[in-house]
C-alpha cells in the first residue's frame, strides 16, 4: 500500500481500478499480445512509422517553401529520430520479448529516453527532449488512429490517472459517464479540471507531482477527495474503512436534500441569493431538479470546444434558449466566451501566435474585441434568446472602462440591426463585469456608470492578485483565497458597488468553500453562485451561520496581516 498526498480538488471518495491517460488525449493501455499475433503487432508498428515518415515528408515540403532550408533541417532531425535504433529496433524487441502492444512498448521506450533527458542539467540540451516527444506523439497518434481509443470509449467504471487533463478531455469524461474519480500530477483546487470535477460531483485529487508514473492501469486505487490523498493498492481493512466513509457521505447527501427549496437565509434572517454555475447546456435537466434561484454564471466556452469552426448564431441561440426556458422567470447570467488564443487558432482564426503566458495574454474580452465578429455573433444570439427578458450579460477579463463601452456600443449596434431585421426586443439585458483582474476592482467606481451588476471571479482574482499561476506546481501552494489582499479587494468591490446600489455576486470556487462562505456573506456579498453539486452544501453553510457575528468577524479579518490568522479565526468560530 502506498499513500500519496496531493490537493483535494473535489469532494467525495472513489474506490476502483486505475486507468492511465497519457498526454494528447490518448489512452495508452497495456495489452497482452498473444505469441501468434506478435508479428502482426510489429507490422502495425512499422506501418505507423512509415505513415509518420510520409507525414513528415509532407510537412518538410511545406516548411521548405514557407520557412526555408534552416527550418527544414529540424524536420530532418525528426526523420533521424524515426530511424533511431531505439525506436526501430528496441520497440519491436520489446513487443516480441514481452508481448506488449505497440503503443505501450513505444511509450515505455520514450519514457526511458525522457528519463535520460531529465538527468541533463544543461537547459539547452534538456529542452531538446521536446523534439523527441513531438515525433513520439506523431507515431503514437498514427498507431492509435487505427484503434480509436479515447476517453469517450471507456467501457468499465475507472479512476482516471493523468499527468494533466485538458478541457476537451473533461468533455469526453462527461460523455463516457464511466469515471469514478481522477488524479492528476498537475493542477490546483481551482484549475479547470477541478472545477469540472466539482460540477460533476466526481472525487478528485490533483497536484500529485508524479502519480501518473507510479500507477499502472488496472491497479486498485482509492481517491480521497476530502483529505487530498490517493491510496495505491489499499489493504482490505483500508477499503472497508473508506466504504464506511462513502456511506456516511451518502447519508450527508440525503440530509442536504432536505434543504431543497428552502431559502438561503442565515440564522439571524439575512437573506442572500444562491445560484448555480453552468458549464454546458447539457445540465438543464438537473437545473430544474436543483431548484436554485437562477444561474449566476453560464460559461459559454463549451460551445467552442472540440471543433474547428466558430459556433454559429443559431447554434448559440439554441443553447441559450434551452437554458433560459428551463429557468422560466429566474435570472440567467451569460458570460461571453472566455477563450484563449490557442483555442481561437483551432477554430480557424488566423494570425495568432503562441503565447508565452496565456493567463496574462490574449483571452476573454480582449480577444473578442480584436475579433468583433465573434462578439457580435454571441451578442446577437443572446439578444434573440432573451424572449423572457431574464438574461444578463457578463463580460470576462475586464481591465478598463474602454472595454466595457466597446462591448456596449457593439450591443447597441446589434440591437439596431435586429430591430431592422424585424426582431422585437422587449427589454435590454443587464450588463455586468467580472472582477478578475485587480485593476477592475480598483477602478470599479468608474465602471459602475456603465453596468448593472458586478461578479467576482475569485479564481482568477486570487491568481492575478498574488501573481500565482494556479497550475504551476512550484507556486501553487501560494495560491491562497484567504490572503488579506484578496479579502480587502473583495471588500472594496462590495463597498464600491453598494454605494451605487448595485449587487455583487461571487462565482469562483470560494463561493462554495464552507470556510469562505461566512466571510463573503459577512462582507456583504449579495449572491453566491456555485457548482450544482455544491448547491445544497453551500446553502447549509449559509443557513447555519450568523450574519451579524460574521459581519463583525469579516471586519476584523480585514485588519489581520496573514491568511493563517484569518483561516484560524474562521475555523475556530465554526468549530
Amino acid at each position, binding site marked *: 500500500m502506498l499513500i500519496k498526498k496531493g490537493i483535494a480538488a473535489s469532494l467525495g471518495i472513489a474506490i476502483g481500478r486505475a486507468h492511465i491517460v497519457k498526454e494528447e488525449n490518448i489512452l495508452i493501455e497495456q495489452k497482452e499480445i498473444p505469441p501468434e499475433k506478435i508479428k502482426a503487432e510489429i507490422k502495425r508498428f512499422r506501418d505507423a512509422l512509415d505513415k509518420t515518415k510520409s507525414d513528415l515528408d509532407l510537412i518538410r515540403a511545406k516548411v521548405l517553401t514557407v520557412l526555408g532550408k534552416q527550418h527544414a533541417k529540424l524536420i530532418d532531425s525528426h526523420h533521424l529520430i524515426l530511424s*533511431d535504433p531505439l525506436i526501430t529496433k528496441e520497440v519491436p524487441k520489446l513487443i516480441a520479448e514481452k508481448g506488449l502492444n505497440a503503443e505501450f512498448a513505444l511509450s515505455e521506450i520514450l519514457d526511458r529516453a525522457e528519463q535520460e533527458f531529465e538527468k541533463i542539467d544543461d537547459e539547452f540540451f534538456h529542452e531538446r527532449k521536446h523534439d*523527441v516527444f513531438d515525433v513520439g506523439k506523431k507515431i503514437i497518434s498514427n498507431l492509435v488512429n487505427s484503434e480509436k481509443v479515447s476517453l469517450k470509449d471507456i467501457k468499465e467504471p475507472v479512476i482516471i490517472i493523468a499527468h494533466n487533463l485538458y478541457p476537451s478531455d473533461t468533455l469526453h469524461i462527461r460523455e463516457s459517464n464511466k469515471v469514478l474519480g481522477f488524479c492528476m500530477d498537475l493542477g490546483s483546487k481551482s484549475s479547470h479540471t477541478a472545477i469540472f470535477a466539482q460540477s460533476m460531483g466526481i472525487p478528485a485529487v490533483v497536484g500529485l507531482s508524479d502519480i501518473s508514473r507510479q500507477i499502472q492501469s488496472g491497479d486498485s486505487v482509492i481517491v480521497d477527495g476530502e483529505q487530498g490523498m490517493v491510496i495505491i493498492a489499499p489493504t482490505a481493512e483500508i477499503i472497508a474503512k473508506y466504504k464506511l466513509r462513502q456511506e456516511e457521505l451518502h447519508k450527508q447527501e440525503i440530509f442536504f436534500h432536505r434543504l431543497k427549496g428552502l431559502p438561503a437565509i442565515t440564522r439571524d434572517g439575512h437573506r442572500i441569493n444562491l445560484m448555480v454555475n453552468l458549464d454546458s447546456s447539457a445540465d438543464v435537466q438537473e437545473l430544474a431538479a436543483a431548484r436554485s434561484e437562477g444561474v449566476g454564471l453560464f460559461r459559454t466556452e463549451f460551445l467552442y470546444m472540440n471543433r474547428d469552426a466558430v459556433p454559429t448564431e443559431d447554434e448559440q441561440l439554441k443553447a441559450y434558449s434551452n437554458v433560459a426556458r428551463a429557468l422560466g422567470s429566474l435570472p440567467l447570467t451569460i458570460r461571453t466566451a472566455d477563450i484563449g488564443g490557442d483555442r481561437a487558432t483551432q477554430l480557424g482564426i488566423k494570425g495568432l501566435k503562441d503565447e508565452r503566458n496565456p493567463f496574462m495574454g490574449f483571452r476573454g474580452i480582449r480577444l473578442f474585441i480584436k475579433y468583433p465578429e465573434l462578439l457580435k455573433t454571441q451578442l446577437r444570439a443572446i439578444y434573440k434568446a432573451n424572449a423572457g427578458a431574464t438574461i444578463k450579460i457578463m463580460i470576462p477579463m475586464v481591465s478598463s472602462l474602454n472595454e466595457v463601452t466597446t462591448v456596449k456600443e457593439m450591443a447597441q449596434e446589434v440591437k439596431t440591426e435586429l430591430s431592422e431585421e424585424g426582431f422585437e426586443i422587449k427589454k435590454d439585458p443587464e450588463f455586468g463585469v467580472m472582477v478578475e483582474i485587480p485593476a477592475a476592482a480598483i477602478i470599479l467606481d468608474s465602471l459602475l456608470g456603465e453596468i448593472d451588476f458586478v461578479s467576482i471571479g475569485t479564481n482568477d482574482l486570487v491568481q492575478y492578485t498574488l501573481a500565482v499561476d494556479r497550475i504551476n506546481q512550484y507556486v501553487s501552494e501560494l495560491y491562497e483565497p484567504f490572503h488579506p489582499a484578496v479579502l480587502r479587494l473583495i471588500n472594496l468591490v462590495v463597498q464600491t458597488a453598494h454605494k451605487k446600489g448595485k449587487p455583487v455576486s461571487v462565482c469562483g470556487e470560494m463561493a462554495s468553500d464552507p470556510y469562505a462562505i461566512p466571510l463573503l456573506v459577512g462582507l456583504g456579498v449579495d449572491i453566491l453562485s456555485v457548482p450544482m453539486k455544491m448547491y445544497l452544501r453551500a446553502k447549509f453553510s449559509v443557513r447555519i451561520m450568523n450574519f451579524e457575528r460574521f459581519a463583525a468577524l469579516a471586519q476584523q479579518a480585514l485588519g489581520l496581516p496573514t491568511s493563517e490568522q484569518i483561516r484560524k479565526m474562521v475555523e475556530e468560530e465554526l468549530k
Partner: protein
Amino acid sequence: MIKKDLRVINELGIHARPAGMLANTASKFACELKLIKDKMEVNCKSIMGVMTLAAGKDSTLTVVASGSDEAAAMAAIEELFASKFDED
C-alpha cells in the same frame, strides 16, 4: 576495436543537428560505434542517445568502433568533429 578521444570544438556543442549528423554518418557503417562521456555510454547510431550526452563545447568524448569497417567509420566520425559539424 579502435578507441579515440575527440574534443567538441564547435560553439553550440552536440545539439540536435550535430547529433543527427553523427547518427546519420554512423548508420552508414556496419561496425558497432559507441560514444562515451563521463561514464555514460550511448550508441552513436542513435540520435536520441547522442543528444542525451549533452556534450557541450570543449567536452571530450571517447569513440569506440569495433567491426569490419571500424577504421573507415572512425575516420568519418573524426572528420565530423574536425569540421565543427559544418557550423558557421
